[in-house]
């Protein structure tokens, strides 16, 4: 579904992505893992066309995405830190998104809006919202238009346990609908029952991309957190 070939992105001297080639296929739920600053968010942003790579190519459904925009109607994106026009209310933002994506979807999915109780505060301005509430708005928007691909950048950071659980249930539901889901998170324990593949990056390079089951077998651990911990401790010889 999404292929990248040798993408490299440099920010000045820093190489954020170093020759990354990956294939993400339909129906998988993939965890993008790695230490802070390893290029996870940059990778996500290049997939969305928000960051333009210096070299390499990205294909969405076998079509080159450079300069294209239509393919983004198949993607729901939840940013790590959602930034919204400050003097718009939640209702304004949601209406604007519906208006912009109207063509692609006549029947928006408002399940998360209800689940998070956003209905009550529709008239609050974005600038007055807490970090957690902003995250809820981001999540609701990402799922709203039945996208084939969901890209969630630290979805549960800042959410209370109850909301975080609701979001998790929603992710599992969408996964069962056969959608491609990319998640970055540092809370490994909550990924256990979500993901099918692990994609591990370090200093802009892809270290490994494996099935969760293979990873567990190789390390002999049942929990993802322990398996990753084992790998991070060992000298890597990939």
């Amino acid at each position, binding site marked *: 579904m999404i292929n990248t070939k040798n993408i490299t992105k440099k920010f000045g001297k820093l190489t954020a992505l170093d020759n990354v080639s990956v294939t993400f296929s339909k129906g998988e739920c993939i965890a993008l893992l790695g230490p802070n600053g390893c290029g996870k968010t940059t990778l996500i942003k290049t997939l969305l066309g*928000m*960051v333009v790579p210096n070299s390499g190519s990205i294909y969405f459904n076998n079509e080159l995405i450079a300069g294209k925009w239509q393919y983004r109607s198949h993607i729901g994106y939840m940013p790590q830190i959602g930034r919204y026009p400050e003097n718009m209310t939640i209702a304004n933002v949601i209406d604007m998104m519906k208006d912009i994506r109207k063509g692609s979807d006549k029947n928006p999915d408002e399940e998360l809006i209800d689940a998070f109780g956003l209905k009550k505060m529709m008239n609050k301005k974005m600038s007055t919202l807490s970090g957690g509430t902003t995250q809820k708005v981001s999540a609701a928007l990402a799922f709203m238009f039945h996208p084939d691909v969901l890209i969630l950048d630290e979805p549960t950071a800042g959410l209370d346990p109850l909301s975080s659980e609701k979001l998790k249930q929603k992710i599992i539901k969408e996964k069962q609908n056969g959608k491609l889901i990319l998640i970055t998170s540092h809370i490994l324990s909550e990924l256990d029952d979500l993901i099918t593949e692990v994609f591990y990056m370090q200093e802009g390079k892809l270290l490994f991309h494996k099935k969760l089951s293979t990873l567990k077998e190789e390390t002999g651990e049942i929990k993802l957190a322990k398996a990753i911990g084992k790998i991070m401790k060992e000298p890597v010889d990939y």
Partner: protein
Amino acid sequence: MKKILKYVIVDIVQNKIVLIYTLLLLLISFTVFNVEDNAAKGMLSLLNIVLIIVPLICIIFSTIYIYNSSEFIELLVSQPVKRRTIWLSIFSGLASSLSIAFFIGAGIPILLYHADATGFMMIAMGLFLTIVFVSIAMLAAGITRDKAKGIGLSILLWLYFSLIFDALVLFLLFQFQDYPLENAMVVFSFLNPIDLSRIQILLQMDISALMGYTGAVFREFFGSNTGILLSFVGLFIWIVFPIMISMRKFKRKDL
């Protein structure tokens, strides 16, 4: 395009600064026409407003507005929207709302007190300058990431077009006063949209006789229909060029 433009315009209207700008222009226009005993003198005072204040307000407001829309831009870039559409919508939103503000604030008083060729030319030039300086603001904000730098660049550009450019031309004129520079002056004036507008309005006011021989050359060139057409083309290029460069930059910008 229309959808995004709608949100930009609603946002600018809610901002209220454009409204205050309109009222300020209205106040100034009615004052100059009522204080002076003949409307022609009022036009002369208004000329300076059109040539100095309008570009200043347009460039500063637009630059700050573009930086403040960074969230809006960021939100839209991850959606199925062309970058070109986002950038052009912001440009059109700014250009149209500031043009309407100018037309209501200065255009209507001019039409009421001085509805002749001079008046029409002044309105046309005011509208052109409004759009040109929005376009230049898009360029300034498009090439600098830092807000303070971008606003500083805008102020410098305004200063350049309204003061420094003329000083440079004068300097050249004095340095090379032994040579016939009249034709070169015509070319120079195309390098500055404010000068182009000033010349067109002054020629309509019929005081080019005060400008000596250069004035006669100007009259001959800019006073003719071809000259007027060429000035309009020149101003049009001043609109298109900065916005095109900033667009190319924006298309490759990392957000």
